Structure formats: structure tokens, C-alpha cells
């Protein structure tokens, strides 16, 4: 029961964030209405990140944020080119349809997602290796005391 309640609470936005979501939606709507080509290109290039943002349930959506940021980094160049060329929705669609641009953006987002997934794992591995090294040093030290002073070996695990 407790676990389910925790999950539901994590899935539901907090009451204080409700207005922020509306504001974000309003901002997005304004961007779509006022800068439609940019919104289209951004939407297409950042689709994996936006999807991750919508799908991730973890608090703070760390993987989605990293994914989205990596996508933004990859999309910066096409968007700049779009703004400088002054293209409309068709130009945005054309830019988005370039495989290199789209694949690069999406690959960057995939790399970001992968980075967000691997970083904790690698860090934990590093932490565990460090702890194991300390434990080994302590056990060596203990064994020396056992040998020198006749102290009985540890009985625990």
C-alpha cells in the first residue's frame, strides 16, 4: 500500500507545480504560435528528449533532462541555420528531413540518455571498488594484529 501510494504521488505533479505546467504549456503554445518553424524543427529534432520527458517517472526526470540537453546541444546548429536563413515551416521541415541533422540530434539524445543511465552505474562501481580496497587494507591490518597479539579472528560475515 505504501509503495503504491509513493508511486502515485511520484506520478502526479505536486499541487504547487500545477500552475508551472500550465505556464509551460502556455509558453509552448506561444512559441508554436509565434515561432512555428522553430517549434516544428525543435519538436522534430528534440522528439526523443520530449518523449523521455513525458515518459520518465523519476523525480526530477534526470535522464530526460540530460537527453533533452544533449538534443538541444545537437540542435543548436540547425536552429541557428534556420533563424539565419529565415525559413518558414517548409524550410524547417526540410532541415528536419535531412538525415544527418535528424540522426545527429537523435544520436546525441541517445548518447545523453546513455550517459544519464551509465554515469550512476559507473560511479557506483568506482565507489564499491574503493570500499573494497579499504576493506582489504583493514583486513590485512586486522590479520597482522591477530598474528602478533593472538586476537581471535572475526566471527561475523
Amino acid at each position, binding site marked *: 500500500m505504501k509503495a503504491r501510494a509513493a508511486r502515485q504521488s511520484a506520478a502526479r505533479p505536486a499541487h504547487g507545480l500545477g500552475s508551472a505546467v500550465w505556464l509551460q504549456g502556455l509558453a509552448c503554445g506561444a512559441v508554436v504560435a509565434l515561432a512555428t518553424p522553430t517549434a516544428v524543427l525543435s519538436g522534430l529534432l528534440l522528439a526523443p528528449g520530449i518523449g523521455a520527458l513525458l515518459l520518465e517517472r523519476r523525480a526530477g526526470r534526470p535522464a530526460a533532462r540530460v537527453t533533452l*540537453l544533449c538534443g538541444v546541444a545537437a540542435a543548436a546548429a540547425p536552429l541557428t541555420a534556420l533563424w539565419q536563413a529565415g525559413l518558414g515551416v517548409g524550410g524547417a521541415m526540410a532541415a528536419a528531413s535531412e538525415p544527418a541533422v535528424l540522426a545527429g540530434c537523435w544520436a546525441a539524445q541517445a548518447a545523453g540518455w546513455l550517459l544519464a543511465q551509465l554515469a550512476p552505474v559507473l560511479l557506483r562501481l568506482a565507489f564499491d571498488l574503493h570500499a573494497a580496497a579499504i576493506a582489504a587494507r583493514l583486513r590485512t591490518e586486522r590479520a597482522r594484529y591477530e598474528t602478533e597479539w593472538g586476537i581471535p579472528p572475526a566471527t561475523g560475515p
Partner: protein
Amino acid sequence: MAAISSPDDAQNLIAGTYGVDVARPLPGAGGGLAAFAVTDRSAGRSGLMAVQSAPGAPPRAMALNALAGWTDDGLLVPLAHGPGHGARGEAAWFVVSAAPPGPSLAAALRPWSEPELLEFVLRPAAAVLVALDRQRVTHRAIRIDNIFRAGMAAPVVLGTAWSAPPAQYQPALFEPPYSAMCLPSGRGDGTIADDVYALGVTLVVLALGRLPLEGLDPVAILRRKLALGSYVALVGDERLPPAIGDLVRGMLAEDPDHRPPPVLLADPAAARARRVAARPPRRGQRPLELSGDRVWDVRTLAHAVATDPDEGGRLLRSGTVDRWLRRNLGDPIMATRLEEVTRLHDIDGLADTVRADGLMAMRAVAVLDPLAPLCWRGVALWPDGLGPALVSADAMGGEAGDLLAERLGDMVASEAAGHWAAMRPERSDPVALRLAARQRRVMVHLRGWGGGLARLRYALNPLLACGSPIVAGRTVARLQDLLAALEAAATRPELRRGQPVDREIAAFIAARNDQRFEAELVGMADAASPEQAVLMQLRILAGLQRRVDGRPLPGLAGWLAEQAAPSLAGWRNRPRREALERALGEVARSGQLTPMVGLLDNAAARAADTRGFHAAGAAVQRIDAELTALAGGAPVRAEAARRIGHEAALGIAMMAVTVAVVAAVLA
């Protein structure tokens, strides 16, 4: 000059000079003890003998010391003494002296004429007694089978009397009644007057040409002497030469103070003229029944109370003795003094009734007959005979020996000698005896292995060999002999299972070492473990080794190292312990005990070891806590990795965005 020797097993040498030939016994020469021919290996003197002490009868150390350098004739004086081995290989103490010049007077007993007695017996014997008295030594073995003569016209020579406690082998006939009633071993050195008495009996025997009272047992002889007086009991109606009769009458006086001194005896005419009025004991109108015997006078009453103190005490408490003294003997003064004794019994208020009754009977005997010895619960002895009496009780063994030892121990614990002397101050030195009694009681009550009757036994008998089974087969009478004997004992595997110092050896060391090791001896008894006791023993033996000659004792050192090895387990630091074990083995092989003490008895190092152990324990506890924390820290690490990983990834992504935006703007 009398000298003490060390044992020499190979040659049985005494003082390194006198070789005892145990294959050549000299029957009848030792005054009741075994005697053997001796060869003087340095000067080549002949005509020497060695008298072997019997077990349980130590030699007279004081007399041997006092007679060192004696040069007068007429006595078989000690030349040397020391340990050796008897005919059966048994360990024994030997006293070397000149051999008798001829057969003893008992060999061909015949009536002697008055001139013969005066010229060849009395004068030479009196001269010897004068010289002995000058040295404050008594002979206490003057009897016809211990007096020798070279030929018909030669003066007599007194035999040896140094290899056994004073008068231990004297028959009741030759002893004053107050000595004859004592334990044979407890007769004490006595006074020269006792020798005068024995010489008087000898004169009677020689004058008569036979032993008087022959066929009577010692108790009957004693009772006859007490009842009739010694002179009447011995001479009776026999006719003695007039001069001898007069002399002997004085010499056999019951009161030692009434006997002529040896100086006077050297001049028989003067001695004969000395008359002492000795009144016979007052006889009662009717006898007093005590233990089935009829008592007619106070002297026999005192003897009866001494012999049966329980019955005597009952009669004293019931007032029967008091009534008999007043109504039948007409001696109210004596009765009043006895009343005082029973009153003291009530004042003492001892919880131990046996001891209280013993005290009362002893005081009663002292009041009834001030000449009597100390009579304690059926045991009679003179206070200076306590040492040999303790030895005889120990040697006697069995139930009788235990009973005697118990009574002697009780006597010492009660300071009976002091109380006894207080009852007869005119005949002894109460202050000195009380002091000695107190010292003996303190010695017996000393805590630990350095106290008890065993210590008193060794303290009162300077030449008593140590009775420990560990040194069995060797005569260990001095500390330097002890180390050699222990070194020899170290070769016997069955002994090495135990510790090298037992109670007997501890008491022996305590008695011979002037309280130098009191703390260790107490510590041995209080030791919490055998290893601690061994450490105490090691300290003692190391001290002895330093004190004696420092000769290496590898066997004993190895024995002690084996016994002390478990104590090394107390060292917690293993490398240090192993180093100590190696060092102990090396030192033990060198045979020096003092370095072993330094290794085993290092309090500072022990304390450091303990401190180190505690520090190690604390460190191990800290390590265990850290390991436990590491083992239980996985979730924390995982959470930290997740959090930091996400932040790092976010940081990288932000950096990428920044770089991309800057690059786009610049482009």
C-alpha cells in the same frame, strides 16, 4: 679443628680428608651408633673412626661447633663432620673422632676398688667435665659402654656423644629421673650436673661390678628413683667403698644444684666433705589413687599427673588432690598453690578445652615438682629438647608420630614453655624462655610455606638434613648442598613432572636463610597459578645460587624453564613470546638462574605487553567497526552514485549545450 665437609660420593670423604671405610665397622665404638674405621688421607693418622648419625636423630651442632679445636685428653672429641653414605649406601651424617683406645668398661664388668675408681675414673672424667663445662657443653652419654680404657693402668676416656641428640641413647638407669621421664629425643642439652649424675651412676655400677636394678624396665626404674631417691634406689643395702659412697650420694642428688660441680670432683677429698642435706619427700598418711597407681608423695603425684594429664586434671578440678594434700600430706601451702593453678585455668578461659586442660596439668606438675621437665599432655621434655623431639616425631611417622607432632605443635602454639617457666622462676629464666616460646609460636604461625612445624624443626636442628623426597638419597643439611642435590634430582624424569621446591625444601630454606626469602615463600603459598609459584621458586633458587658459589646449574635451570614455560603464555605479543622462549632456553642451557628471573620477572615489560595488547584490541575494534560500516554502506554508496552520476551527466550535457550555443553563435 672440627670442619664441615661436602659430600664426596666417590670416596666418602669427610672434610676432604677423612675417608670413611664403611666396610670396616667398629662395633661398640660409637656409643650406640654405627661406627666405621677412618683413614686420614692428608696426615696419615690412624686410629680414627666415624660415627654415623641415625635417621631422625640429628647430630649436635652446637656441641660440634663448641668443641672445634679441642685439645684436652680423656674424650673422643670431634675432628670433623659432614655428609657421606653408610654401609647400605644410605645418606647419613658422619662425625669423625679418634677411635676408642680400648674396650669399653662394660666389656669386662667387675667390682673396682676405691683407688681405681678415684684414680682412673673419677679424676679423669671430672677433668673432662670441667673442660666441657668451660665450653658450656654437656656430654650426656656417660655410661659404662661409652667409657673406654686403653689398659689396666690407664685413665678412662669418655666416648663420643655428638652424633645424636643429647642423652637420646642413655638408659634410664644412667639418667636423672627428670631426664629419664622425657622423650629420649627431648632430653635437651641439660647441664653439667646431669653428666655428674651419670658419672655417679657409673661409679656405682663399677663399684658393685654389676648393673643395679637389672631386669627392671625403664618406667619401673624411674618410679623407683622418684619414690626412693636415686641413691637409695640404686645402692639400696649394697655396701660401697666409703669414699665412693659419700661421693655418689652427692652426685646422685635429685636436685642438680645439690650435686657437686666437676671442679670439686677433681678433688675427691673435698667433694666427699661436701654434704648436702637432701630431705626425702614427705609421704602421705594414705595414698591417692590416680590411674590405678597409688601415689604417696608429691613427686610421684607430679609424675602421675604428667603421665595421665586427663585423669590428673579431673582430680585437680574436683578438689581431690587439694584434699589429699591438706589432709593426708599436711601441705596446705602446696594445696594453695594448686588452687592458684586451677584458678588460672578458669582465668585463661581458652575456648579449646584440651589446650586449657593441658596448660593446667602442666602448671600443676611444675608446682608439685619444680624439678620436673615440661609435661604437656603426656609428653615430657626439656624446652631445649624440642628440636630433636620434632625430628623424632617426623621420623616416627604413622599415627604415633602424627600424635606426637600434634602435641608438640600444640605445645608451641600455646607457648607452654613460657607458662612453664613462669611457674618455676627460681629454676629457669622465665623471660628468656617466654621470649623463645613466643618466637617459636610466631615461626609456626608464619603464613606460607616458610612457616609451620617443619620450619621450626629445621631452625632448631642446624644439622638436620632436608627431608624432602626430591633430595632423597643425599644429605642436604646446608644450603649449598641443596643446589647440588636439586641439580642431581633434575636428571630424574619422574621428579621433573613436579616443581623443584616442595614444602619441606621451602621450610628448610626458610630456616637456613635468615628470613631473606620470606616474601617469596609467602608468595609461593599465595600464588594464583603454578607458574607464579615456579617464578617464586626461581627467585629463591637464583638468590641461593648467587649467594653460594654461582656454579652453573643447567639441569635445575632446564627443570625450572620447563615449569615456567606455561607462564610465557601470559605474554600476549607473539613475537616477543617466541623471542623469550628462545632466550629462556639459551639461558637455561648456561645454567644461570638469575638471568632467567630477569627474563620471566620483568614487570615493566609485562605492563608494556599488556598495554600493547589493550591497544591492539582497541585497534581491532575500530577495524571491525569500519568493516561493518563498509559492509552496510552499499545503499548509501548506491544513492550517492545515482545522485552524483545524474548531476555529472547533467553537468556534461549543460557543458555540451553551452559549447554548441557558443559555436552556433560564433558560426
